[in-house]
């Protein structure tokens, strides 16, 4: 035979499993990547610019004395830098993102495509208004959707994110109190203990004082406590309430709460972070709400982008509508117009919150999302979101401790009661990372011990939910048994647990060149 013996082995030849130490610091596809300041050079560039003549100077000597010293990178190096870094991120496009109160749902790519149409991305906010009629019409159309879905008569479009929308609503309340001549006496805002941190922070930013109301054993507003807090009349500015609340429950007494607040002369601010649970099924306007922000980056699926940009249009009741901030869009026989000044049609406005007209890029995406779903689809969104959350609750209730009895809305809340001594919520959360999932929201809301808040959203399939529940069940059983290995999780993530204490005690907030002696020693 003509035996050919040159070639490569075609099956594994070793079963050795110890970790490999590499010279590069990479681990296969997870490649090591230093900071741009360590890999770039001042003479490198990824942009070819025309050469300036350098003959004219109208700066009058107001010039930079010390160069930035920032390095550049060529395009191939820059692209690789960001690709390598991207591999260290979890993302909704990779898997389930069960963060409660954050509504991490699929971000349709059509929305990215249309937001990049030059007719939206390449127009300036201060162009003459007759050159941006399509943009103004889009804002008006989105406003119509938001008003119709919430059953509210007006919407302020300019707030930049959820917390900014809260500010908008609370400033509208403040302005209404000023108009009533009661702003000096009505300074108290009621906020449940379970509220998002932004609520009390916002109230304080608007010059109000915060009065905390208790939660009852059902995870809802304690009505006795509320009635008592309202019995001292005359100083109530309003209440800030999330509904469905941060325990994932609908506030059963919401209409009574609204009536009581209104009788006490205050206004009802609803935090709309959890609108995804009720969109198309319940209109906040029917619940007695006076103001509510809508996180377009939650319910209406504009991408979170690693922490923004968001968008927080704020719907307003008849009582607050006149005080909406400028700018706003109106339509007459000549087309669409922006009211930009606090005079004429904007005379009652509480002011201007921001430069220009709001997050247009997010408006385009949100409208594309709404048009895609339609009224029928949005109702299905809420129902599937709630169904998915209840399915997770049902599957997990035997191995974890549901915080409250009964059905939940769009998120399932568990306490750490089932864990053995020494195992904490954070250990369960970090163990999920090794299973390929982002952790749930933990230690929030504050009213539940060691809280774990899971919001799967409607864009998860049953198969994916089952895989997630299988993984979480396994971790929960280990946590109940006191498995110490959980304390070291995650083991397989791009990084092990990080030392947050060191970061906070000795803050290093930017890169600095190594000291000369360190360079000399190399």
């Amino acid at each position, binding site marked *: 035979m003509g035996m050919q013996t040159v070639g490569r082995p075609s099956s594994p030849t070793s079963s050795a499993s110890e970790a490999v130490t590499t010279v590069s610091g990479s681990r296969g596809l997870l490649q090591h990547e230093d900071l741009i300041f360590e890999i770039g050079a001042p003479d490198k560039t990824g942009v070819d610019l025309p050469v300036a003549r350098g003959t004219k100077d109208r700066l009058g000597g107001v010039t930079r004395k010390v160069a930035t010293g920032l390095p550049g990178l060529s395009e191939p190096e820059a692209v690789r830098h960001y690709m390598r870094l991207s591999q260290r991120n979890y993302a909704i496009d990779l898997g389930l993102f069960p963060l409660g109160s954050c509504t991490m749902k699929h971000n349709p790519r059509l929305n990215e495509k249309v937001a990049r149409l030059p007719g939206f991305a390449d127009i300036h906010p201060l162009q003459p208004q007759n050159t941006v009629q399509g943009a103004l019409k889009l804002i008006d159309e989105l406003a119509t959707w938001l008003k119709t879905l919430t059953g509210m008569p007006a919407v302020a479009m300019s707030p930049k994110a959820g917390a900014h929308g809260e500010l908008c609503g609370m400033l509208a309340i403040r302005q209404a109190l000023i108009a009533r001549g009661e702003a000096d006496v009505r300074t108290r805002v009621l906020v449940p203990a379970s509220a998002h941190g932004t609520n009390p922070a916002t109230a304080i930013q608007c010059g109000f004082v915060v009065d905390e109301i208790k939660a009852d054993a059902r995870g809802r507003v304690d009505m006795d406590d509320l009635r008592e807090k309202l019995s001292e009349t005359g100083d109530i500015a309003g209440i800030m309430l999330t509904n469905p609340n941060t325990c994932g429950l609908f506030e059963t007494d919401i209409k009574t709460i609204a009536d009581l607040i209104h009788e006490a002369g205050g206004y009802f601010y609803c935090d709309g972070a959890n609108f995804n649970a009720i969109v198309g099924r319940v209109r906040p306007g029917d619940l007695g709400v006076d103001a509510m922000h809508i996180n377009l980056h939650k319910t209406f699926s504009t991408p979170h982008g690693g922490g923004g940009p968001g968008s927080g249009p704020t719907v307003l009741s008849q009582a607050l509508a006149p005080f909406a901030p400028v700018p706003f869009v109106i339509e007459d026989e000549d087309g669409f117009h922006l009211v930009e000044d606090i005079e004429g049609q904007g005379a009652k406005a509480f002011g201007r919150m921001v430069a220009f007209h709001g997050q247009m890029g997010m408006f385009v995406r949100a409208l594309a999302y709404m048009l895609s779903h339609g009224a029928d689809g949005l109702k299905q969104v809420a129902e599937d979101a709630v169904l998915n959350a209840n399915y997770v609750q049902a599957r997990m209730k035997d191995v974890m401790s549901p915080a409250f009895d009964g059905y939940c809305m769009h998120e399932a809340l568990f306490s750490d009661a089932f864990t053995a001594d020494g195992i904490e919520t954070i250990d369960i959360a970090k163990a999920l990372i090794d299973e390929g999932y982002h952790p749930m929201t933990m230690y929030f809301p504050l009213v539940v011990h060691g809280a774990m808040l899971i919001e799967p959203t409607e864009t998860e399939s049953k198969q994916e939910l089952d895989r997630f529940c299988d993984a979480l069940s396994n971790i929960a059983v280990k946590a109940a048994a006191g498995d110490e290995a959980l304390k070291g999780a995650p083991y397989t993530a791009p990084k092990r647990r990080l030392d947050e*204490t060191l970061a*906070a*005690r000795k803050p290093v907030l930017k890169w600095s060149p190594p000291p000369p002696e360190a360079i000399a020693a190399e």
Partner: protein
Amino acid sequence: MTTYYTEDHEWIMVDGETGTVGITAYATEQLGDVVYVEAPEDGSFGKGDDMAVVESTKAASDVYAPVSGEIVDRNLLLIAEDEGGQGKPETVNQDPHGQGWFCKIKLSDKSELDGLMDADAYKTFCEGL
């Protein structure tokens, strides 16, 4: 010198007209790693006023004045370096009842001490939590 305790887990060690204020070991266990301390250089505080702030990685908590008085000194050991201190807030965890004191105050009304707990009463109080 006698040490008194509050229900909010501050201690005050009184020596004549001056008291040294800190937070208890129980408090530091609850807070976890202390990363930052803000203590006033001067000023007067009423009993129960927000006097200082202690931050851990998980919470920021106010430290209340156990009694009324005027600030006469603060513990630079705990204060951040960029604020003129020595940047060792971890001392609060290591030695809460000694080196980890926050500030010294000149007492304006010593009778207010009567409302505070002694070491035994505080121990019992913590066991009931």
